[in-house]
């Protein structure tokens, strides 16, 4: 009994160290500095009031949030058929191979994959050059540096985190359940809406939370693929820390981002009638 406890604490220690020193302490540090003026000591709310004072800040903030919600929905729409295909349609033999293919972008790293999209979409990129070659266009299409290219990049780097949780829940869906519904006269659409979607809801919610967090907190895709109009809030934070060296302001922005993502997820869980402790199942 005594021994078991020792083992328990030894195993717990790394987790606790990680949580305390790499997550809790830096966050407290940042939280404190967000209530401090940029130079000198004291308590101030001006870092937060600056956010509401300048239109560019809160407009970017709202745009980023709405855009991240949109990309999450889009990720669901694109990922669900893929997950369904991989778990229910294709034979097991190929399914694991295809899933492995999906993982490849993760091995390479986000920066490289995003630059991959630049070489695809750029003025002298693969797509424009091919179109020019077959004579469909004579001037390159403006494919890069706009909201569409940014959305593609965000989708590409986050999609897998939607596909995998949905696949997990779909795998536990008994095929006989689909057959039973069909046997009882349900159309394909009804089966999808009444059986498949409700069954995979935990996976959908799980995937949506991860994708939303990844997208709203992403810096690389908006920075490299986005245009002037697609300013991402993380870029504002980056600017505060590294361009204007206003760390207190940056910290305040960081906490605003944390706040809005937490609120959005909480609302999404409320609206879908799911509970946070059930999502992991």
């Amino acid at each position, binding site marked *: 009994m005594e021994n078991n406890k020792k083992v328990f604490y030894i195993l717990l220690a790394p987790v606790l160290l990680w949580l305390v020193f790499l997550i809790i302490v830096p966050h407290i540090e940042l939280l404190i500095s967000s209530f401090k003026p940029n130079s000198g000591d004291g308590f101030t709310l001006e870092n937060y009031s600056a956010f509401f004072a300048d239109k560019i800040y809160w407009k970017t903030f709202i745009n980023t949030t709405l855009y991240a919600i949109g990309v999450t929905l889009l990720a669901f729409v694109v990922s669900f058929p893929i997950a369904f295909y991989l778990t229910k349609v294709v034979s097991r033999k190929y399914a694991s191979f295809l899933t492995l293919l999906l993982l490849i972008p993760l091995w390479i790293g986000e920066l490289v994959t995003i630059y991959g999209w630049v070489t695809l979409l750029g003025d002298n990129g693969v797509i424009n050059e091919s179109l020019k070659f077959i004579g469909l266009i004579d001037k390159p299409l403006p494919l890069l540096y706009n909201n569409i290219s940014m959305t593609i990049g965000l989708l590409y780097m986050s999609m897998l985190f939607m596909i995998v949780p949905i696949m997990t829940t779909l795998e536990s869906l008994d095929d006989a359940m689909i057959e039973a519904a069909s046997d*009882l006269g349900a159309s394909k659409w009804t089966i999808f809406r009444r059986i498949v979607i409700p069954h995979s809801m935990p996976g959908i919610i799980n995937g949506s939370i991860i994708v939303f967090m990844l997208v709203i907190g992403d810096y690389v895709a908006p920075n490299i693929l986005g245009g002037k109009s697609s300013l991402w809030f993380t870029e504002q934070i980056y600017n505060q820390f590294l361009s204007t060296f206003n760390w207190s302001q940056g910290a305040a922005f960081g906490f605003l981002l944390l706040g809005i993502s937490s609120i959005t997820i909480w609302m999404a869980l409320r609206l879908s009638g799911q509970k946070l402790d059930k999502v992991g199942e």
Partner: protein
Amino acid sequence: MSSNILEIKNLSKYFDNFTALKDVNISVKEGEFISILGPSGCGKTTLLRIIAGFLQESEGDVLIEGKSMKGIPPEKRPVNIVFQSLALFPMMNVYENVAFGLKRQKLPKAEIKKSVLDMLSRVGLQGYESKQINELSGGQKQRVAIARSLVMKPSILLLDEPLSALDRKLREHMKVELKELQKEIGTTFIYITHDQSEALVMSDRVAVINKGLIEQLDTPHNLYNNPKTGFVAGFVGENNRFEVASRDGQKVVTKHGWQITKPDLDFEPTLMYIRPEAFIVDPDESMKGVEVFEADITTILFDGANTKMLVKPEGKDEILIALPQNAKFQALKQGDRVKVAVAHENIKCYKE
């Protein structure tokens, strides 16, 4: 036009280079309880899936109520399935599960409610409407699955080994319940199983399938007492199986050297079956048309009313004999020599 509710005509099914079903013919009358009995992999589930429309036949035809089912999808066929895994919808409660099919037909709400409540009370689940599926016991889930299919008023209800997931006691109980439910409702049941006892107890007729072929389609009584093939004799009920080495006039000699007289044989048998209960221990001298032999008891297998013993006649064969539980046989013990008789008609010989 015949009055048969289901007619399976010359049905064959091939998968790549594997024959799952070969020239199957079955006619089922309305209100019958038919079992399709066979070992796993014999093609019985394939047959069920073809009737339901989840699989396409390679040759032949399935007629339901006299109409060919060629090209008609599962949701348009007047049959419903109770799946082996039951396949209840865990995201819905009992009422929603049973109402699922009726809602698809866009019936008025009041009518759906009446049908569902009526069906739930028929299967003994009144008051369970708002229960979640995971709150139910195995037997209750079973009944919800049956109610969900029966509420659709199918011409035929197909049941794919629905009792196999239950423990033995409950299975015995559900057997009786299912048979009574069928009698009361009068729907035609086609019951797939590998358990011969389920098939014998519940069915009006049983089709025994082996390797895609129907070996015998008959009443449980005939199946048990007059099996047409060696496979049926061995598969249905308990049986003593002897491989026959040769025939010497009226004497059949087994591979292990036991000899027994079987008169009027007009073919060379390779297999011989004798039921454990066909043997009469310590027979009356006056009995006629029987074969009497002596054997040594090797083991007594006490199991209450099912007590049996293993005996060894001359040769190396071991014979299982059912022992009636009366005082006369209680003294029997291992090593005793007993006189055993068996009627000639109970000795069943087969070519293969």
